[in-house]
């Protein structure tokens, strides 16, 4: 009997700490993403408040400057009624945000935490991550279509325009990192960076384009166009209430998080450097990866206080003229570096 319990305990523990379960569920997946969500939305409001010389969230927990505000908001979302309007396409209306939320998580699973700890260690893991990221906008379109509301529809339309324009620079700038490091495997890319130096120093152009695309595609200012509160209420999520709205609010932050993780892996040297206490367990280097991603996330939300919003035509012009050209230049740049390497 005792042996059996011991056996179950050990296999259970092993299963939990196996990368296939641990990554999607605990770190950098669900639990880490949720804690980040709570901290980041508070941080966004706080930073904007400080820059505008205000206080921001405060009364929920006075001693921590209102850090629990988001927990309170989440509780309120959980307990408020979900109203399903008569005119909506019910199945799509309820399911689309949930599926959208799930799919926004998926790219995180592909991102390795350290050399020996990855849920999916595939030769083309970079391409898998990019492909999973592009699912986002199609489901957002379904959300906006199902709501049968003009504001949702306009928001969805804007998102459609934007996603067409940002996906090409996104993929090309990611591919120029792949060219630079001669691999589509995220683990190998980080290993190469450990040997050569960070990708951002080799190809700053690609790093800048990718960073702008992160801000562009996750509706952060100045590209907060699909959700433009002062113009179209909250875009695709106008008709939503309760926890479904809460999901909608969190989705762009989760996407921001997953893209920042990818950015840290491609351009900021991933989990390197692995120094002493971090080499004790294969999951520990992930802390460095998380910190790097967090800095990107914090920077993106900080921009809310700096920029006003672009009009959609301005954003499209930036994407098609500047980002598109710069992305191609960065690809050529990577090839140039490769050629110099081969010749030298």
């Amino acid at each position: 009997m005792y042996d059996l319990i011991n056996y179950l305990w050990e296999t259970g523990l092993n299963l939990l700490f196996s990368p296939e379960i641990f990554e999607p569920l605990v770190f950098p997946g669900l639990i880490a993403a949720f804690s980040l969500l709570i901290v980041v939305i508070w941080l966004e409001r706080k930073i904007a408040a400080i820059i505008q010389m205000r206080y921001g969230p405060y009364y929920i927990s006075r001693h921590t400057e209102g850090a629990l505000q988001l927990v309170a908001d989440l509780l309120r979302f959980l307990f408020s009624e979900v109203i399903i309007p008569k005119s909506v396409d019910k199945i799509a209306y309820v399911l689309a945000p949930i599926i959208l939320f799930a799919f926004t998580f998926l790219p995180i699973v592909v991102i390795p935490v350290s050399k020996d700890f990855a849920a999916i260690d595939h030769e083309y893991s970079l391409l898998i991550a990019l492909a999973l990221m592009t699912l986002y906008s199609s489901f957002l379109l379904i959300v906006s279509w199902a709501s049968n509301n003009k504001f949702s529809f306009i928001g969805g339309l804007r998102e459609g325009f934007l996603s067409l324009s940002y996906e090409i620079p996104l993929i090309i700038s990611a591919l120029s990192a792949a060219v630079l490091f001669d691999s589509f495997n995220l683990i190998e890319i980080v290993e190469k960076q450990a040997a050569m130096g960070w990708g951002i120093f080799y190809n700053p152009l690609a790093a800048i384009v990718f960073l702008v695309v992160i801000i562009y595609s996750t509706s952060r200012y100045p590209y907060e166009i699909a959700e433009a509160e002062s113009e179209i209420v909250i875009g695709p999520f106008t008709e939503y209430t309760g926890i479904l709205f809460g999901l909608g609010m969190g989705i762009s932050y989760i996407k921001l998080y997953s893209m920042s993780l990818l950015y840290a892996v491609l351009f900021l040297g991933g989990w390197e450097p692995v120094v002493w206490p971090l080499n004790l367990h294969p999951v520990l280097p992930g802390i460095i990866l998380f910190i790097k991603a967090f800095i990107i996330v914090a920077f993106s939300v900080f921009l809310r206080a700096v920029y006003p919003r672009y009009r959609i035509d301005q954003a499209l012009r930036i994407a098609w003229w500047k980002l598109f050209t710069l992305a191609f230049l960065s690809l050529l740049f990577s090839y140039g570096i490769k050629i110099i390497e081969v010749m030298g």
Partner: protein
Amino acid sequence: MGLLTNLVDHLKAIGTGLKYLIPRRLTLMYPEYVEKLPEGYRGYLRYDNEKCIHCSLCARICPANAIKMYRGGDKKLRPGINYTRCIFCGFCADICPTGALEYTTIQDIAYEKLEDQVYPPEKFAKGVPQPVYPEKPIFIIAKVDEERGLKYDRV
């Protein structure tokens, strides 16, 4: 070339944002901190029934029609005020020939009902309503500061 100046402009904007990341808040945590207002502030009005000579000038000058004259038992007219209308311009206090109307520095009064804000002469003469704070507030005075614009000092 345009791209480069563009980049410099963006960096400048971000730099300005970073510069303001040091907290220098201008707003006040209101019920904990309360501003002591300067003399001559036009707040709620004090009415002295003894000094009033029933001339009705205050009701005539009031641009918001907030003052209404009530005829009392002694057939004399006395002012009553409706604070839902008053814009705190202070004209009534300025025109009052005997100083029966005065402005005070009190301004933060909350009411539960709209009707509570109407003061007939008897209620008006009883004195100015006093603000209620959840706990004893810290009083501060606002000062103009060359660099910041506004600065708060404790009383």
